[in-house]
């Protein structure tokens, strides 16, 4: 009986020891952002070994409890490449890269738009190409850019946007920091600081010309022929 009790106590102690929290466990706090530096909301953050997961909030912040140092943390988000990171204590900052990220065309810089105080200054009278980029779910497209003319600092007359040799109706253009520029071809006109209106009536996102984003120190304008995947 005594032997049995001793055995039981020994087994209990062994199991208890095995069940003690592993050293190096802690709270993992972190931020996940896109390749433009902005926090990514709704990213699924998973501890690979346990499957425990959290969703990043609208700032891209997340918190996971009881994560052991050395654990692999997986980040999954629609439209972005899944990434795995080994956590080695401390706050984690992860940047996810977009799938099918726009690839920039080869071209040469012929003008510039620079922020001056609260406005953008454009290169007057320049014939410039519209740098051209496409993110299409249908695959490769060939884009040919045509010049547009800067008439005044806030008025750009685009002779022709571009031709598309492509299949399918959906395409978006992005500037260098990944913000939306607009969609569809046709003649277009930029009016004022923040609005671009195309002749086919499409509304263009205005962030390209908004000087409020500190990352937009200078946007180069290139001419050339481009393609993207």
């Amino acid at each position, binding site marked *: 009986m005594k032997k049995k009790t001793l055995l*039981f106590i020994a*087994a*209990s*102690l062994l*199991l*208890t020891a095995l*069940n*003690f*929290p*592993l050293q190096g*466990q802690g709270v993992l706090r972190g931020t996940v952002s*896109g390749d433009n530096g*902005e926090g*990514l*909301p*709704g990213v*699924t953050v998973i*501890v690979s*070994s*346990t*499957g*425990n997961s959290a*969703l990043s*909030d*609208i*700032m891209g*912040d997340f*918190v996971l*409890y*009881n994560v*052991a140092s050395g*654990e692999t943390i997986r980040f*999954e*988000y*629609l*439209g*972005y490449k899944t990434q795995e990171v080994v956590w080695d204590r401390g706050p984690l900052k992860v940047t996810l890269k977009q799938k099918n990220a726009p690839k920039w065309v080869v071209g040469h810089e012929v003008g510039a738009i620079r922020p001056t105080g609260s406005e953008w200054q454009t290169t007057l009278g320049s014939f410039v190409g519209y740098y051209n980029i496409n993110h299409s*779910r249908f695959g490769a497209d060939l884009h040919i850019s045509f010049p547009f003319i800067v008439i005044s600092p806030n008025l750009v007359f685009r002779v022709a946007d571009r031709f598309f040799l492509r299949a399918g109706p*959906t395409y*978006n253009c992005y500037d260098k920091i990944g*913000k*939306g520029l*607009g*969609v569809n071809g046709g003649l277009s006109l930029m009016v004022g600081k923040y609005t671009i209106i195309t002749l086919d009536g499409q*509304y263009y*996102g*205005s*962030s390209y010309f908004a000087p409020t984003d500190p990352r937009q120190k200078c946007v180069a304008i290139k001419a050339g022929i481009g393609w993207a995947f």
Partner: protein
Amino acid sequence: MSHRYFTVLLALGLSITAFAQLQNEETRVFKQTKYPVGLDNYQSILYYFNGNEALNIRHSVICSVRGEIQNMKVNPAAHSLAVVFPNKDKSSVEIYYMNKRDERLHHFPEKVIGKAQAICYTPDARKLMIASGNKLLTFELNKYTLVQEDLLSATPVSLCTSRNGYFLGGITEDGQAVIWNLETKAVRKVFNTPARVNAIAFSADNKQFGILTANGELKIYDTRQFEEQVSIGQLNQAITFAFHPDGKYVGVVTNPSTIEVINTLKTEERDPVTVLEGGISYIQFVYTETTNYMAFNTANSLSYKNVTSLTPYYTRLLEEELSQRFDEWQQRLPGETLEEYQLRVNDENRNRKSHEWEEEISTRLASDLVAMSSVTLGSYNAAQELLALNFSTMPTIFLPVPANEVSDFDDTGNLEFHNVKYGLTREDTFEMVYADIYNKKVGKTYTFDNRERRSLDYLHDEEGFVPLEYIQQASMEEVMLKEIKEKVVEAALQQNVITDHTQIAVNARVVNDYDADGKQIYNYEVSYKYDVEEEFSSRDDFPSGRFQVEQSAAAMSMLAIVKESLEGSLNQYLRPGKKLKVQVTGSADATPVRRVIPYQGVYGDFTNEPIYQNGELTSITVTKASGITTNEQLAFLRALGVKNYIQNNVAGIDQMKADFIENVEVSKDRGSAFRRISVVFTFVDAF
């Protein structure tokens, strides 16, 4: 720290009485390449559609369909969304995964759907309702089979449900608002509004229903009798609105560039938020761990305005704490005789306790309000010998001061406030109800005592107390339950099934509620849970990686008590056809699952099964093929084991309308003490 208490503390620090200036609060803007036409959300994350595409907040395309999307709803358990788009003279309704592009889960045949004008998930995420004409088709979401077809009293073009599953709200094609009973689809209320209804919504606590009409009016009704509680006018175009989760504020989109945040208890308090780019057509209040946001669309973005500075709904906080305290107070104390219990728990003592606790809780919530206030002297009422003292943060008080001593009150800097007690007004603001006010100039203390005048009696009228006879009945039954528990535990100990380091707890209480017809009901809640001391839990409870209840002696002992009590002393509540809610909680610790644990499908295969985790609805998948790879799956299977046991072993359950709710908890810590189960039975309308 819970989100709620963080908010309370922050709000106390920021603004006790002053209305927040939300325009100046930070806004997080997510620029979009397309205008977010229609939106929905899961937790704090927004999703939207434009043209033939549904997109996430970073404008990644979730799906692109063959027609222009007219309506989109996110599954409340988060894994998928449903879209409606026209297909010739009919409509297509399709379901897509949210985290994979263009991965369609289901297409509902057009010939079954017809022309769909509105869709809506049930609050438990188990079904999708599609309105086609005045037909309401209900599909369960495991196999997408049509499980119910109802004819509604009118043709809805928009639908929403209350979270408690009582009501289906709709805007009809002729612009009226209707409430149906979600279960029976019978009309509960038709609202004859003076103008076309633009938006409807239920509050998060299910207590209120709002109707926004094109004549610029928002009317808020209680959901018990659907009587008007609040009317807010002059809302311009009155495009849409949302309730703040607390229920104190609403956000109303008054024109495409403006949202007004309005205190529903003091409707003149309106805080406009203006957005230059315009385009606002959607609004929702969401929150993260530390911050409350008002989320909305604009012409080119999804935006989140920080609204954490809005003051909490103090009266609700007070109600919740009072309710908790009464639950504890009503419990029979160890060793207390029935006579002693009846002497302690009676109406008179309950009223006294209620007043005492209201004052105590209000005073704590108000913090040191008088210290944050500037005090000025008001006029003196010579007839009643009352001196008015004005505060910048709360209403004026009238202090009894003899006429010959009024001149001593020439400088408020001489006044010290001691033993200050506060109360809450109907407008949810604090007022001083008691203070000893020391005038340093003459060294005399004056007492202001207004405790008798105010009380929150109106709360009691609205909510109703549980009759003492029911409480006493529950208390008596709890004694019997504990006797059964002792008997079962004793037997288990003697058979060496468990050790005396396993503690099983059984509790019973009566909770007041109302049903979908507004009738006052009393629910009987019986809970069973156990704790095993850490060093014995691996012996008495689930070994690591195990989930079948038969593998836990503690779980089996607890379930033996469940069976014996339900078939014995609680059998009177197992009436055929009556509603029973069974909340089963399975827990797992944080030990990593290093390899796939085989699952032989003993409880069936589950794909995207809705479950609750930490109070939030989410979904889980575990199949024979997938095996067990996560702690959530282990916890879920433990909960299923309990459900399976109850369904197969407790007589009488199958005769009831039993609704099982699986709840999953994964501990932040490792160790066998965190692998366990508990179960709560709620006998609806039991008395």
